[in-house]
């Protein structure tokens, strides 16, 4: 929306392109500018030495970076709009904003991520430059777009 010119009514639901009917409640994404319902996935717990910034690029031998692998997994059932990596080590996190998500639940996506195998290693390490272990990866969207 270019400007808020509402003269009556509430600021939730009536202008919300979302799939939630919650009204005037906390922790609900109110989508006024994107054509379809949004979802925000927080994906983390990749191990103590994870470095997702390095994993934005491929390995020296062309192996996919872990971020690419994770995004492709998410994109199998959603359209990725934007993403960001943060921190390193045990608090490394990939934040993904998607629209039209068809993932049944966070648990479904989490299971898909945990099932990933590195293309070279054949193990749960999907990193091209550092160890990105998905065995205990955690996925949640319950926080919505609350910023850290």
């Amino acid at each position, binding site marked *: 929306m270019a400007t808020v010119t509402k003269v009556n009514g509430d600021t*939730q639901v009536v202008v919300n392109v979302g799939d939630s009917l919650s009204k005037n409640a906390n922790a609900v994404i109110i989508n*006024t500018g994107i054509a379809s319902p949004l979802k925000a996935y927080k994906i983390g717990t990749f191990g103590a030495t994870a470095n997702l910034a390095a994993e934005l*690029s491929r390995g020296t031998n062309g192996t996919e970076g872990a971020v690419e692998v994770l995004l492709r997994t998410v994109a199998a059932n959603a359209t990725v709009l934007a993403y960001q990596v943060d921190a390193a080590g045990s608090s490394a996190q990939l934040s993904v904003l998607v629209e039209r998500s068809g993932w049944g639940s966070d648990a479904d996506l989490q299971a898909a991520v945990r099932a990933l195998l590195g293309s070279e290693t054949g193990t749960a390490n999907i990193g091209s430059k550092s160890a990105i272990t998905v065995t205990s990866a955690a996925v949640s969207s319950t926080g919505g777009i609350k910023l850290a």
Partner: protein
Amino acid sequence: MAIVTKSNGDSQVTVNVGDSLTKNANATIINTGIASPIIAYKIALAAATTGNLAAELSPSTAGTPGAVETILGKLSSNATILAYQIDAGTAGAQQISIIAERSAMSASDYQTILRTLGNVGSRSNVYLSESGGAATTTVTSSGGIKWA
């Protein structure tokens, strides 16, 4: 994007509809699905705010705009708001998260504007500056879209 099918290159900048040339780094929004650069504002309200932001999504019974509408209105004069969310209901922890595109307003400028507003609550006290005069509402965008 429907799916990541990149066969070479990195996962940042080359596909990024953004205004940052930072490459392969943490805390940088990588925008692949929204037509113009996006920015995420985190607004942490003043500690003296005892109001309930969920209630402030609607106007008062007399038609006074809710605090959320007032806060959004100040940003939308210089940006297009795509989505927003409120969180928490306890004093000192209330937060509004906003994703906007084509923003011409820095976080510090937005903060300055908000701090001039005082109590903007329609149903309860929502101080953007402390009732005693100290201005403690903070606006940041440096965290990007890292989900809490």
